Each structure stands twice: as C-alpha cells, then as structure tokens.
C-alpha cells in the first residue's frame, strides 16, 4: 500500500480494454490460493484456538472446546496493556504526522531536482535493520546522553530519565514508522496543484489560512492513509516496548508473544490476537468512514 500510494501519482492514461476469459482466473489462482490458505484460514484456526480448553494434568495441551470465558479472562488480566498499546500508538501517530508533514510538503512542492534523491533518503533508513535501529535509541536516549542532560536541565523529564520510560517507547514508535507517514502524505501533496496555493495567496489569504483552507483539506487522503499505516503496525509492535521500555510499558504485542511462545498459553494468546485484529478493523473502518463523509470529497 505504501508503494502503491507513492507511485500512482503519475499521469493518467486511458486503460487497456479488459478481456474476459478463463486466463484471468488461472493467473489469480496460485497467489490467491496462497493468501487463502496461509492468511485467511489461519484466522479461522486462530479463532478456534482462542476457544480451546486446557487438558487436565498436561500443561501446553489443549482440546477443541467452546470456552468463551477465555476472552473474559484475557480482558480481565491484560486490559491495561491493551489500552496502553492504543494510547502509545495514537500519540506516536500524531507525533509522526507533525514531523512528517513538513518533510512531505517540502519534497512534494519545493524540492525541484532533489525530489527523487530525497525520496530515496526517506526509504533508506529501512535498509538498516529495524532491531538495530531501535537498539541504537538506547545509546541516543541513555541517562548521560546529551539529549537527556539537556531535557533534565530544563526540568522537562518527570522521572529524570528517558530510557526505560514510556517516553522512550513512544519516541521509538514515532521514529520507526515515520516513513509510512511521509510516503502517503507525499503522494497526496504531489497531486496538489500549486496554482491553488498561489490563487489563495493572491486573494490575500495569509499562509495559515491558505494551509487551513487549501493545503490541509487537499492532503487529507494522504493524512488518512498515513495515520492508518503508522497506527496499525505501531499498535501491534512489541520491539520498541521490549528494547526501550520498562516492564511497566509492556504493550499487547509483548503479551501475545510471551503467552504464545514462552507460556504456551495458546487460547489466551489467540483470544488477545483476535481482539486486537477486531479492534483495529473497527477503528479503521469508522475512521475511514468519518474522514470520508466529512472532509474527503
């Protein structure tokens, strides 16, 4: 989706006439079968696993059942991590939007012949290992680091440190998913006709009014795509919470991972995954709909 949003901004050409023949189905079949077997069906097994009951006396063994209480106990035990995930992901998404917008705006409207180089530079950080880049923030945000010392001198840090606090986790999430925000914003702004901004200026709108009435509304499709592409992976992420946060900052991803792989409590972990997916889908569709009906067209 990132790539698609970023590359479809070119000239529009009359489409080639589409043929109706069996070949179409043959082309689709292998790939769609793969997605059906290894993406769609696993959701069914995930749901079935989330209702399984433990076998008495042999831990890690489960039998098919209809134990809906798994969901109740998952919520009762892990609701703080659930809420925290959405809170952290939400804050990180807003910060990423604030940081990404000027960059996307500049690349789309002001960069001239530096445009393609700047786009490469936006994607380039992803070539370095995600885990190592996150780990590097341990160095940048360490207790004696310049940035921590500076913020402490201004008395801005409630705990006197950044590493192993929620600030570090949110900072990591903001950093890691920033390109997912920049690219869709760029794609939307690139389609914006600069003459509209000129017209607004000619009509004596100040820069803030121009931004509010022209640029921002026209970039909304990019804002919607970018916030979704940042929020979804951020809400499910557990790498940042594990490497940069304390045990007080664990997110739902951490819980799913430990329950699945370490505790082998498959039903609870499946119930949590299922609820995470359902919540995200509900949020996504409400969000798209609201943004769509109010402002998009």
């Amino acid at each position, binding site marked *: 989706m990132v790539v698609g949003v970023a590359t479809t901004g070119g000239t529009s050409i009359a489409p080639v006439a589409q043929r109706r023949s069996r070949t179409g189905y043959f082309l689709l079949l292998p790939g769609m079968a793969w997605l059906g077997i290894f993406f769609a069906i696993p959701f069914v097994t995930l749901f079935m696993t989330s209702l399984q009951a433990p076998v008495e006396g042999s831990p890690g063994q489960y039998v098919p059942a209809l134990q809906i209480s798994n969901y109740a106990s998952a919520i009762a035990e892990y609701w703080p991590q659930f809420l925290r995930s959405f809170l952290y992901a939400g804050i990180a998404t807003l910060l990423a939007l604030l940081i990404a917008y000027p960059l996307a705006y500049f690349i789309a409207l002001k960069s001239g012949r530096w445009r393609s180089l700047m786009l490469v530079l936006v994607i380039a950080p992803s070539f370095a290992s995600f*885990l190592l880049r996150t780990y590097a923030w341990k160095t940048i945000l360490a207790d004696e680091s310049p940035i921590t010392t500076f913020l402490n001198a201004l008395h801005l840090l409630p705990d006197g440190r950044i590493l192993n606090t929620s600030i570090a986790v949110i900072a990591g999430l903001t950093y890691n998913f*920033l390109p997912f925000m920049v690219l869709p914003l760029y794609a939307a702004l690139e389609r914006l006709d600069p003459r509209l901004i000129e017209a607004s200026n000619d009509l004596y709108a100040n820069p803030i009014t121009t931004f509010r009435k022209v640029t921002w509304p026209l970039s909304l499709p990019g804002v919607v795509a970018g916030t979704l592409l940042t929020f979804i992976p951020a809400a499910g992420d557990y790498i940042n919470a594990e490497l940069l946060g304390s045990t007080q900052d664990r997110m739902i991803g951490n819980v799913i991972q430990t329950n699945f792989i370490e505790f082998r409590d498959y039903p609870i972990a499946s119930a949590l995954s299922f609820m995470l997916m359902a919540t995200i889908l509900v949020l996504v569709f409400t969000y798209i709909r609201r943004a769509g009906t109010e402002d998009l067209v």
Partner: protein
Amino acid sequence: MKWLRSHLVGIIAILVLVYLFVPIAVVMILSFNKPAGKFNVSWNEFSLDGWTNICGVPGVCESFLTSIQIGVVSSLAATVLGTLIAFALVRYRFRGRSTTNLLIFLPMATPEVVMGASLLALFLNLQFPLGQTTIIIAHIMFIISFVVVTVKARLQGMDPRLEEAARDLYASPSQTFRYVTFPLVLPGILGAALLGFALSFDDFIISFFNAGTLVTFPIYIWGAAQRGIPVQVNALATIVFISALVIVLVIQVRGQMKRKALSAAVVNPAAIDVLPRS
C-alpha cells in the same frame, strides 16, 4: 529573519531527514567500537574487530546466510505469484474482484503479531514442524500484497499505445507480450522483488513466531540484545545498509539517464545512438 521564514519548511525537512539517519549513524559508529562491558551501547575505544573478524562470533554469519536464503526464495516466489495477480487485476475481467482486492489489502492492514500468531496457530493445529519452510511460507504470504501493488501501479502507468503499435505492426499476442509488455513491466517486477527481499530479510515478528529453533539474522539480534550485541552485527548491518543504498541510487541514476536520452531522442532523432542497447 525574512530568509528564515521563507526557508522554514526546507530547514525542518532537512532536520527531519537528519533525524531519520541518527540511529543509523550510531549503528555504524558502534561497529568500530570495543565495548567496555558486554553491551555495545556507549563509545569506549576504537577497534576494527567487528570488520576484520566479521564471522568471529559463532552463529552470526550462519544466521546472516539463513536470512539471505529465506529472502531470495520467498521474494522470488512471491514476485511470481504477485505479478500474475497484478496482470489478472489490470488486464482481465472476472467475478469476485472486490473479494480479491480485500484479500490483497488485508495483509497490509494486519499487525505482524496477529499474522505471526494466527499462522503459528495453524501450524500448531496441523502439527506441522516449524523451521525454514514455515518461515518461507509466512514470508511469501505477507510479501505477495506488496508485489501486487507495485507491479499493478507499473502496469496501470504503461502507455497502451505501445502495445497497440506492436499489434498494428502484425505482432502476435505472444510477441507483443514478449517484446513490448514484459520489458516495460520488468522494472516494476524487479523493484517488487527487491522490496520483497528487503521485507523478508528484515522481518522479525512473523519469523520469530514461526521459526521453531531456526535462527535468522533478526532473530539472532533479538537474542543477542539480552546478553549484548556483538560488534560484528553492526558491521554486517552497515554492509547491508550501504549495499542497498548503492543499488537503489544506481537504479535511480540509470533511470534518469535513460529518460534524458529518450527525451533527447524525441527532440533530435540523431541522438538515438545515446540510448543504452539493452
């Protein structure tokens, strides 16, 4: 003051770009470090150990090669499957289009932890042994959608008159495909394959769920993070980063040169000699 105001967006944009590269600079600098304790997080002393003895720590290079193998196999397979889907979507009419589109969109809108967990639930219920095969299956699954989107964009951006011209010149459908359509779509397919390799090579979450005891490069780093990441890992990551950057920049520059030569040829047919014969 006025200068600052009119260049404000540009200055912020450059600062954001710099910010994107700060952690990478840290990774590179620490590859020349000789850590004081077991954790390589703060600068201690210059050393070339990470570079001269790059496979010196057991497991590092093995995991690196495992990741390359998995990346090659899964990106190739996903590129074939995804390209076929992209052709079907753009060139053919068929029933069930919206279901198809949904099934392609959803993997990109699903958190990795959910995909990893649900696939693991499937393998556990089937009692399928975890290892390289399960990781490759998982990677092909999540790469397909990205390939479809990339190749589809390229196909839709193609000038249909080129294929019409081929047909007008009595090329058979298979000749048109072989000499016109395929070469034009090829850069999109190659781009999709590269993207797929990058996604597979760097994937941690889905791999970790479905790896069993197999150790890929990201899984090695994850394990090492608890007991101290060896400098060799930083050196290898630096190599990967720089080679990927070089590949992308070369593709960019070549593309620009080709476009320049083409537009020159349109203006002045004598300039056609400049075109690279490929």
